[in-house]
C-alpha cells in the first residue's frame, strides 16, 4: 500500500494548491518572473554587474511609489529611476574622486531611503510590505497584465540581442571595433535590468530581487562552459526554484519570497559542491583518484 501512498501524496502535494485560483496565478507569475530573471542573470554574472543589480533593484523603489501616486504604470517609474540611478552613479564617479563601489552603495541607499520616506507620506494606497517582500499570492489583475507585458518585452529584447550582448560582456573592445554600438547595448542591458527588477519585486520583493538577478546565473555558470547551455540552465533552475518556493510557502505557511530565494540558494550550494567540473567535492575526487 505504501508503494502507492507516496506517489499519491506527492501528486496531491502538487495538485491540491492548483485548485485555488490565487495559487494558479501565483505559480504562473512566479515561474514567469523566475524565467525572465534567470535569463538576465546570465548577463549580470558574466558582466560582473551583481552590485549594479543590487543598486538598480533598490533604486527603482521611489519610482514605483511615485508612479503609483501619479496613477502611472509602475514600470514607467521603475524604468526612469533605475536608469536614472545608474546615470547618477556614472556622473558622480566621473566628477569626483570617490571610488565606484562606494558611489554605487551611496546612490542606491539614497534612492531606497527616498522610497521609504515617500511610502510613509503616500501611505494610503501602497502596501510597503508588498514592495519590500513581494506577494505573488495577492497579485492584482492590473499588475498581472503589466508583468506579462514587461516580461514579454524583456525576453524578446534579450533574445534578439542575445549574441551582441554576449559579445559585449565578453569583449566590448572587439564589439566596438566591428562597428557594434556598445553604448546602445549598455543601456539595453540596463533597461532590461530595471524592468526585470520591477517584475521581480512582485514575487520576492525589492530586498531579495537581486538574488533572482544573480543566483541562477551563478549556479548555471558552475555547471557548464557553453553560453547557450548556461542560459537554459539558469532559466530552468530559476523557474523551478520559484515554483517550488511557492509550493513550500503554501504548505508550510512561510514567506513566499524568502522560500523562493532559499530554494535558489540551496540549488547553488548543491552545484557548488557537486557540479561535474567545478564542484569542490567532485574536484577533490578527481584529483585524488
Amino acid at each position, binding site marked *: 500500500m505504501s508503494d502507492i501512498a507516496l506517489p499519491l501524496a506527492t501528486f496531491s502535494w502538487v495538485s491540491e494548491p492548483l485548485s485555488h485560483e490565487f495559487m494558479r496565478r501565483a505559480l504562473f507569475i512566479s515561474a514567469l518572473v523566475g524565467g525572465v530573471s534567470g535569463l538576465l542573470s546570465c548577463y549580470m554574472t558574466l558582466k560582473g554587474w551583481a552590485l549594479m543589480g543590487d543598486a538598480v533593484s533598490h533604486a527603482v523603489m521611489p519610482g514605483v511609489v511615485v508612479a503609483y501616486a501619479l496613477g502611472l504604470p509602475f514600470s514607467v517609474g521603475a524604468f526612469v529611476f533605475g536608469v536614472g540611478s545608474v546615470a547618477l552613479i556614472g556622473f558622480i564617479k566621473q566628477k569626483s574622486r570617490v571610488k565606484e563601489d562606494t558611489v554605487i552603495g551611496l546612490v542606491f541607499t539614497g534612492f531606497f531611503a527616498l522610497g521609504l520616506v515617500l511610502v510613509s507620506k503616500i501611505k494610503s494606497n501602497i502596501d510597503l510590505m508588498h514592495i519590500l517582500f513581494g506577494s505573488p499570492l495577492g497579485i492584482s489583475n492590473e499588475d498581472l497584465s503589466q508583468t506579462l507585458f514587461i516580461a514579454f518585452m524583456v525576453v524578446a529584447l534579450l533574445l534578439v540581442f542575445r549574441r551582441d550582448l554576449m559579445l559585449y560582456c565578453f569583449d566590448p573592445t572587439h*564589439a566596438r*571595433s566591428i562597428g557594434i554600438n556598445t553604448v546602445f547595448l549598455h543601456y539595453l542591458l540596463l533597461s532590461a535590468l530595471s524592468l526585470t527588477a520591477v517584475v521581480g519585486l512582485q514575487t520576492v520583493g525589492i530586498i531579495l530581487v537581486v538574488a533572482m538577478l544573480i543566483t541562477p546565473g551563478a549556479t548555471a555558470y558552475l555547471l557548464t562552459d557553453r553560453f547557450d547551455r548556461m542560459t537554459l540552465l539558469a532559466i530552468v533552475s530559476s523557474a523551478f526554484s520559484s515554483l517550488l518556493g511557492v509550493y513550500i510557502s503554501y504548505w508550510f505557511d512561510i514567506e513566499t519570497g524568502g522560500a523562493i530565494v532559499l530554494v535558489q540558494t540551496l540549488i547553488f550550494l548543491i552545484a557548488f559542491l557537486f557540479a561535474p567540473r567545478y564542484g569542490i567535492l567532485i574536484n577533490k575526487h578527481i584529483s585524488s583518484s
Partner: protein
Amino acid sequence: MKDNYRSVSLGNCLRIEADQLCVDYNGNVALYDASLDLRSGCICGLVGMNGAGKSTFFKALMGFVRPSRGIIRINGLSLQSAQRAQAVAYVPQNECIDYSFPVSVWDVVMMGRYGSMNSLRIPRESDRKAVFHALERVELNDLRHRPIGTLSGGQRKRTFLARAIAQRASVLLLDEPFNGVDIRTERLMAELFRQFKQEGRSILISTHDLSHVREFCDLVALINKTVLAYGNTSEIFTPENLTMTFGGMPPDLLSGTTSLESPDE
C-alpha cells in the same frame, strides 16, 4: 579555398593615415601631433614606455577616444565606415580577456564574423567556412570545441588571431602580442605575419618588447606623447633614439637593445 579580401585589390594603398592626432583626457595631454602612415603589407611596431601614449593611440584608432584634433583614415575611409566594413581587427592582450567566460574556441572565432552577419547573428555556411579556415591557419582546429579557459597562453593568442582572420580585416591592431607566448606560437605568428604581408594586410603592434620588434617589424614608431621617430626599423632603432624614447630608463634595458645590434643573437 581562397579567402576573398575586399580591400586587397586596392594594391599598395595607405591602410592607416593618422594626421596630427591630439588626445587629451580632461585637459591632460596624452598624445599630441602624432602622425603615422602605414601602407598595405607593412608591419609597424609602436614602441614606448607604459603611459607614453601607445594605448591612447590604439584607442583613437578604434574610436574609443575622440581626438581633440587631427584626422584618422583607414583604407581611405573614415574610421566609422572602415569599422562597418570590418576593416579593423583588434587582438587584445591575453590579460584583458576573462578566460572563465563560457565560450569555446569556435565561439570566439565566430565573433569575428558578427559584423558581417544579419542582426540576429545566425551563422551561414560561409561564416562557418571562414571560421574553419581561420582555425586551420592558426593550427587550432583540433581544439575548436575546447572552452577558452583550458587553453595555454599561446593557444589563446592564436584564437584571437584566428578571429581577426575570420573577420577578414585588412588592418590588425595587436596589443603586446608576444607576452606569454610559447615558441611554437611565435614561429606560427612569424609565418602568419609573412602571409598577412603578402595578402596586403597591415599590422600595428603595440609593445615594449624591443627584441621582437626587431624581428617582426619592418617599420617602427617611437612614442612618447607624440611620434618621436618613424621609419625603417634598422634606421630608427638606434641607441640615441631609444634613449630619447625611454627617457631616464633603466640601463639594463638599453644594454639589452644594444646587444641586439649584433647579428645572429
